[in-house]
């Protein structure tokens, strides 16, 4: 049972009563980034204050300990998503993860006329790297239509896929609408046609239990900062055989086996092959603290609580009679809406004036707006430290949202 008020004691952003516009901060932008608990901040601080060292082949104790710390985090990630530690590659985040697959796998394996299948709800980071791979290889990016409700469906993928399809990439939870995609079934369809399946877990790994072996995805990418971890650290999971057939898109120290002055070099085995240069070591340590923190609360509990918050928010916003909700039925803790007759950005500014942090815009999924038939929306997104009081404050603001110029004159 989640007790958000108790949980908030672990978070300086809450404990220190951070304000915005002179009002208590109400943070409803968790799909964008999340607050950090003490244990994560302390882990980072410990690295900088007491454990500073580089990793890889050091001859002294601090360096040896650093290598152990990195390995412990690989194991923590493996435990979180149910894979082997050597299938865990550290990246700067989801975006780098997709780029790594695009440059390192797609550009190596795709040829002219091959197809990459995406869908209309994808985030820019799961669209643009594929455009790049298509441009370089002559492959084509195609978009699988969403259902009328806005879901990714197995039927629509079946209708769109062909033997030319080499990659199917899909977000587990879309960042605007918050529907959960049937990943296991989608991956099965992809594999039946000889395509690999890439799962964007940026909006799902922080919120629910993930088992990559059960889902049978070839790659999974996610970010640390959306799960109470530091910014600048993320994970690429790849089935080991897939990682073996992936080329590094960055080279340098820490990833080569040997090289000579004739321009020849051999690379280390995965995952080290993809981790050129000094890694974000403080971030790696902080990520482990975040994973352990989330597990101590329980990802199933978190998921259940967010579903409850979502249902509560939809009910409360509907009661105002002043909101247009675009995703009332989606599962994740994301509500996408507009205040009636108010342009999204004006609405979000008004919320800011009430101390409420929501995001307006196209949420990096610019192609989705053709589907929603509105130039922009406001998005409120929750986490396990969100309270029903936060949602009440949002609903109260939405109710009075017609006076949105109050933001400038009150």
């Amino acid at each position: 049972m989640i007790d958000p008020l108790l949980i908030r004691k672990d978070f300086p952003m809450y404990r220190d009563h951070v304000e915005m516009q002179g009002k208590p901060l109400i943070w409803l932008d968790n799909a964008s980034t999340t607050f950090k608990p003490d244990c994560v901040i302390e882990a980072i601080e410990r690295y900088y204050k007491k454990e500073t060292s580089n990793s890889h082949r050091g001859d002294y104790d601090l360096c040896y300990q650093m290598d152990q710390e990195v390995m412990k985090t690989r194991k923590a990630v493996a435990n979180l998503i149910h894979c082997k530690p050597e299938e865990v590659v550290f990246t700067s985040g989801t975006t780098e993860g997709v780029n790594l697959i695009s440059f390192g796998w797609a550009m190596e394996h795709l040829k002219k006329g091959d197809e990459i299948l995406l869908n209309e709800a994808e985030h820019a980071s799961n669209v643009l790297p594929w455009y790049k791979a298509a441009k370089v290889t002559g492959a084509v990016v195609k978009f699988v239509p969403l259902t009328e409700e806005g879901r990714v469906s197995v039927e629509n993928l079946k209708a769109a896929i062909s033997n030319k399809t080499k990659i199917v990439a899909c977000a587990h939870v879309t960042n605007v609408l918050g529907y959960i995609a049937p990943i296991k079934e989608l991956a099965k369809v992809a594999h039946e046609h000889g395509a690999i399946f890439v799962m964007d877990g940026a909006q799902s790994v922080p919120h629910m239990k993930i088992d990559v072996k059960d889902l049978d995805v070839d790659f999974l990418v996610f970010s640390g900062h959306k799960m109470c971890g530091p910014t600048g650290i993320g994970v690429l999971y790849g089935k080991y055989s897939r990682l073996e057939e992936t080329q590094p898109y960055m080279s340098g120290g820490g990833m080569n086996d040997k090289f000579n002055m004739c321009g020849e070099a051999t690379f280390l085995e995965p995952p080290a092959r993809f981790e050129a240069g000094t890694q974000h070591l403080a971030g790696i340590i902080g990520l482990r603290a975040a994973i352990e923190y989330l597990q101590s609360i329980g990802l199933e509990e978190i998921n259940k609580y967010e579903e409850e918050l979502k249902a509560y928010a939809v009910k409360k916003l509907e009661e105002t009679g002043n909101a247009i909700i675009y995703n009332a039925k989606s599962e994740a803790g994301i509500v996408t809406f507009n205040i009636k007759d108010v342009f999204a950005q004006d609405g979000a500014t008004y919320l800011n004036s009430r101390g409420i942090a929501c995001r307006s815009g196209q949420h990096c999924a610019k192609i989705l707006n053709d589907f929603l038939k509105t130039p922009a929306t406001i998005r409120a997104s929750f986490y396990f430290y969100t309270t029903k009081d936060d949602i009440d404050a949002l609903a109260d603001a939405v109710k009075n949202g017609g006076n949105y110029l109050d933001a400038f004159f009150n």
Partner: protein
Amino acid sequence: MPSSIELTPQIMREIIMDHYSSPRHKMTPKDAADYSTTHSASVNCIDDINVYLKSKDGVVTDALWDGTACAISTASTDIICDLLLGKKDEEALYIIEQYHHMIHEEPYDSSVLEEALAFMNTSKQAARIHCATIGWDAFESIIKEGHCHERG
């Protein structure tokens, strides 16, 4: 510059809402070839507009705009169109300069800003400064480019 009408928050709201709900200059010119134009969009927001300026003998004869925009950018862009009409380039640039000073809470000459004074509180919502200036910046760049043109 004492104004004969005191600019109350209520009046400022009405000015913004009036230009937002019925902008006077929001249209695509039919004879686009006669206009200098520029496109302006921001990565930070949804605003995505084109502005159009027509001049004769160094004097603005028409100013228009079109696109997708919030209340703040709609009203502020529409108001600058009003202010530019009949102005020489240097007068226009002076007005734009004063507006920028006002937006950034620096000393400014309020005597030339007329309805644009409604945006004097923009810095209360700092994230919206680019909305209040997107059209102004676009017109400024056209006028400055025009200057280069004449000199060249």
